[in-house]
């Protein structure tokens, strides 16, 4: 059954005809060409597909495109300000919080959701918050440092340069 779905993606109104079974992530990747959002599992655990729906982190592989009708979606492609990285992206780079890069978009979108609700998270809070984001490369060590540094930068707090390189 084909349905037309209208929503806002990265600030722009979008309409598309989809099957009922089309997932939001399929709409983003295949119809809209926004391939920064990834799919790493089938069971809603890896978090590579996390996007923001009306400002909240959601797994786009576990949401039907039709369920996103009328919603505002933000993907990794809309996080930087032009060519200037968002402070959270910059913190990931500066702390070497990514290797293969596959989980990274979901990590960043989740990190932004965390900081929205908890502007100054502790290491423990960051680790617990990342329950729904798997990374196989970094051992999470530098991701935790990056989110801490990114949160500090977003608060406007003075930051230590970074942690990864010092070790």
């Amino acid at each position: 059954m084909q349905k037309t779905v209208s929503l806002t993606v990265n600030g722009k109104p979008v309409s598309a005809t989809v099957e009922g079974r089309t997932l939001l992530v399929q709409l983003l990747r295949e119809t809209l060409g926004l391939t920064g959002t990834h799919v790493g599992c089938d069971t809603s655990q890896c978090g590579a597909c996390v996007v923001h729906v009306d400002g909240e982190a959601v797994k786009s592989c576990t949401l039907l495109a039709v369920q996103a009708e009328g919603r505002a979606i933000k993907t990794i492609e809309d996080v930087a300000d032009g060519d200037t990285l968002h402070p959270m992206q910059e913190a990931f780079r500066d702390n070497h919080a990514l290797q293969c890069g596959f989980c990274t978009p979901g990590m960043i979108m989740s990190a932004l959701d965390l900081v929205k609700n908890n502007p100054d998270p502790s290491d423990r809070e960051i680790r617990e918050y990342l329950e729904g984001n798997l990374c196989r490369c970094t051992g999470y060590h530098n991701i935790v440092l990056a989110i801490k540094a990114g949160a500090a930068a977003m608060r406007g707090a003075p930051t230590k340069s970074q942690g990864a390189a010092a070790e």
Partner: protein
Amino acid sequence: MAEIGTPVRRREDYRFLTGQGTYTDDINRPGQLYAYILRSPHAHARITGLDTGAAAKTAGVTAVFTGKDLADAGVGGLPCGWQIHSKDGSPMQEPPHPVLALDRVRHVGDPIAVVIADTLGHARDASELIKIDYAVEPAITNASEALKPGAPLVFAEVPGNVCYDWHLGDPAAVDAALKSATRVVKLDLTNNRLVPNAMEPRAAIGDFDRATGEHTLFTTSQNPHVIRLLMGAFVLHIPEAKLRVVAPDVGGGFGSKIYHYAEEAIVTWAAAKLRKPVKWTADRVESFMSDAHGRDHATHVELGLDAQNKFVALKVSTVANMGAYLSTFATCVPTYLYATLLAGTYTTPVIYAEVKAVFTNTVPVDAYRGAGRPEATFLVERIVDLAADELGVDPAELRRKNFIPKDAYPYQTPVALQYDSGDYFSTLDLATKASDYAGFEARRAEAALRGKLRGIGIATYIEACGIAPSAVVGSLGARAGLFEAAAVRVHPTGSVTILTGSHSHGQGHETTFAQLVADGLGIPMESIEIVHGDTAKIPYGMGTYGSRSLAVGGTAIIKAMDKIIAKGKKIAAHLLEAAEADIEFKDGNFSVAGTDRSKSFGEIALTAYVPHNFPHEELEPGLDETAFYDPKNFTFPSGAYVAEVEIDPDTGTLEICSFNASDDFGRIINPMIVAGQVHGGLAQGIGQALLENCVYDQATGQLLTASYNDYAMPRADDLPHFALSTHATLCTHNPLGGKGCGEAGAIGAPAAISNAIVDALKPVGVRHVEMPATPEKLWRAIHQHKAAA
């Protein structure tokens, strides 16, 4: 200008951070069709009927192909790249590995048919209309069970399911040494089966250009040239000149993306057959059922010690699970990547290892991060710890007593390898100091007051990396050379493109190699572009695995740079009217020794391409050089890890209190990237020790851990912060002195954690805990002791 040794931020990050990476599944070709692969739901069955008629007629379906279609078209089986010979000199059993099953399926997930349609949904819908009649047969998944008389046979033509029965070392000498030993410590242990689980599932797109007859395969590979060779020569019979393999951004590999997989051949063949691009992307369940698994050993080990507590002999007997077919490099993992490492960091004078490789009704097993070396390290470091416990001596001291002395290099082990350099004392000192090893008993006592069992564990490791000298591996059965290639292409304005056969799928080559080249040619990083992953661009390449990229791939780049500099000197000599022998190259300038006359790298580059006044008889125009580098030896990274854990006896829950890792990687180019590699390896090693386990139902052969609901991946809250340090002894046979760092963490961590656990459970009389040490296993160990008391 000294980029080497500095934590340069990664050049690849911008595209990944902004969603601009291009992974295989991000690529779409015009007119592309989608493949869905129908896989066996049974562990072992004969296919007595196969009817694709209804599926082929379904809306949106272009074609359905089966194993018979491929066989009729002359498609070959998937090859194995390494031939092992058994003790009796007979070659290993190498039964056929069809791309799609013919009359029999041998593991859950064995591919049977492919449906190609306009959408993936339609392809999968249609796959359910394929009618297959199965005659289900008994399955065997445990390798030790598969060796027993009367066990079901995976291949009728392979007696006893034995692929090979191999050995290394002198059994008589080892038996004699064990007989005269003061003490012999014995242990049976398993090395649990793992699923690599790169976060990017495998994907492949086949394309065919009717105009040129060129086939293109985009694939999630760590070594596109190897895929081109194997698929072109053995499976599809396409000459290299007509086959392009592209491995774009790849979302992690850890070994699982080395191998040539059926799906790559299927989409390449089908695209040519249908004259349309064909795309296949695994979902995660498919990844669990089709990516090569890792480890899965069962071992009996005996270590003999003399009255001075010196190791006198080591005897190892291992059963290694191969799975249902031989994956590309499966056969070398439990042999030459395993038994050759059994000396570890110690002077054990005689070692004997025998390994039976066994077929079972499980997914093929092949190299996974560390590949053989984690298995060797785990058993050596467990038996050494057990010996310390039985002798009542400090495990750190027992290790020091038996370490290869600092002045003993080059050191010939009894198991074929010759270590070129190392210093195990210093890394152990660093790790034990950082973890306050001396002060541990106070922490154990304090934890006991809180009702907790606290333990500390040491593991040292050595690995053979920089894989590998072609002559050596060739004599041991490798069907490939393991050199690396690189080209340095200097452009007229002085910018440089490096074409490397190494492949980056997270390792940061675009940064590390650029650092090498910036220092080597004396030019800024911004002038350097690193290109990899495309057989149409790169001269040749053997790819990335076995911590070889820097030691072998990096050296190939240096060799090519040497040729550039040599030619640059010739050009400079001509321009400066000096003798070539008088030209020095330093910091990007070619100068006449002892004078202030010089030409910059950019001037030489321009002259090479604008050769208006060139001695053409002596010198060709252009500045573009290729080098192939074949290493002289393996490299031998080593290190010492100390883990401290605390166990809650009420639930068996374990917390890692600290993890100190000290590694010797030789020269480090980018310490930030190296630390990241260690972190990731440690996470995988800790995952193996505590969480990860691939489980088959013994009765049915069903894969019970086929999703993240059942296969426990390490998450952020399972892991501690890691404390790292390094101590360098340089590799003596490559110009960088680099050894490799990618696998270390996964090699050393399982034993460090396991030793800490056994130490924590010492008060309750536990001798060994199998991995993964889940809370239930730990609780049971404690509980049984309590019940017995």
